């Protein structure tokens, strides 16, 4: 932490889940968290965390009905960091197949699919609940360097805590930052697209290593507050562009 004020971070509240832990992890990591369900409030913060526990369809409905969906899309175009965690990661994708077909926020091209496990190994049940290791994704013949990411300082192979039945499948493989294995399936456990970062595991539930990740996120928020906030206008044109492209 440099001597600046703690970065102000909005934790998006859409009535589904564990915000208290996210809030306390933020505080523990030197951030000033603010739990909010007001779409207008996102404009004045250094970063936004979209957490989530629950079902995709209900969550998207809640985000749309409250106006938060549009606010999140606008925020993502501001260039400031947007962090999705667990269901919050999945909501960033184009669509999900959980309990029917649902459109997501479409910030990242791709879809959310049920974890498919072909082995009958009892340790490979769905939902995937528990501690699994995270590894750097491969990009060509090289491993993604975590040093430039919020995973900086975390050992490859460190265990993190997962609770999910679905996984994200981004259309662009080079967005994948970390991968994990459940049964015989390799899935994306962290991804990045520009200023949007997302983690399938719960860093706020992953013990001291998870808190370290939050500290790195705090650093990211702090760095980015000094950046020019490109494209902050709320005319929605970048979103339209994205929709056309999809």
């Amino acid at each position: 932490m440099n001597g600046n004020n703690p970065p102000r971070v909005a934790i998006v509240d859409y009535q589904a889940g564990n915000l208290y832990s996210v809030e306390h992890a933020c505080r523990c990591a030197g951030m000033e968290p603010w739990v909010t369900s007001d779409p207008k409030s996102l404009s004045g913060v250094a970063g936004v965390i979209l957490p989530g526990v629950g079902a995709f369809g209900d969550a998207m409905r809640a985000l749309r009905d409250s106006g938060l969906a549009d606010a999140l899309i606008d925020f993502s175009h501001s260039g400031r960091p947007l962090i999705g965690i667990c269901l919050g990661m999945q909501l960033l994708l184009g669509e999900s197949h959980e309990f029917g077909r649902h459109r997501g926020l479409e910030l990242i091209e791709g879809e959310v699919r049920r974890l498919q496990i072909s082995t009958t190994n009892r340790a490979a049940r769905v939902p995937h609940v528990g501690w699994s290791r995270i590894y750097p994704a491969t990009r060509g013949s090289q491993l993604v360097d975590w040093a430039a990411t919020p995973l900086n300082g975390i050992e490859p192979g460190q265990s993190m805590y997962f609770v999910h039945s679905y996984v994200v499948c981004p259309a662009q493989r080079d967005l994948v930052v970390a991968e994990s294995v459940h049964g015989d399936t390799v899935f994306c456990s962290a991804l990045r697209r520009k200023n949007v970062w997302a983690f399938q595991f719960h860093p706020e539930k992953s013990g001291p290593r998870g808190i370290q990740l939050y500290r790195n996120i705090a650093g990211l928020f702090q760095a980015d507050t000094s950046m020019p906030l490109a494209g902050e206008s709320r005319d929605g044109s970048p979103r339209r562009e994205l929709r056309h492209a999809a």
Partner: protein
Amino acid sequence: MSVRVIPRLDIKGPNLVKGVHMEGLRVLGKPEQFARHYYESGADELLYMDVVASLYGRNSLLDLIERTAREVFIPLTVGGGIRSVADIRRVLRAGADKVAINTEAVRRPEFICEAAHVFGSSTIVVSIEAIRQSDGRYLAYTDCGREWTGLDAVDWAVKAAELGAGELLVSSVDRDGTGKGFDVELTRQIARLVSVPVIASGGAGQLEHVCEVVDRGSADAVGLASLLHYDFVRSGAPSGHATTPKTQEGNLEFVRRQTAWSAIRSVPLAEVKQCLWNSGVDCRLN
């Protein structure tokens, strides 16, 4: 995937308690201190069970959950007196990650389905309290093994998983607190029939019991109480401050005299992990 070691904290009012066969509760100390100690020792999750909530029809754990979530960054499952979607929402908003449901799931099985639909299956743990009968069958109970549900525990486990339970917490009431070892057969029968994770609970009295229920019982996680609690009380809190209960109510005999059942050879949590690891079980070492 790693086998999880989950300290189970039975809570009555402001105190951590432990009984035998879920009865005759003795006061062991303040739950927060145990929770923090287990977090620092490498626990994979914590389980809070409000052991009187079903009797009073309410959940008195919210303050404790909030205090715990401020300093403990591992998953927390909360059970006891959860009867509605609104109850679940309250507990999750206080900082819990999952809820364990027994009585209401038995009374109204469609509640499992409802809850799973709103919060996702992974948030819903169905808690099954089983008692082994003389003919070898297992029957399911509620209210700490006091009320028979009319259900066969193994059949009920299968149905609960079908209805959307994300995990099953399978507790043996007749082994609880005795230190005689888990009911491996109960765990095995359920684990081989369901596709969701099974947390075995009740009876661990020594390290070998933990390895046994993972190896032969196919448990995905173990719930431990006496095995860990008595060690922590005896060794005192890490900084030397006593785990003095907040009130003088309840049976304080154990805390005063520090005598556990001789059947329980309590150990620190790290030794449980090391023992599992040494026997070839994948678990998370700090």
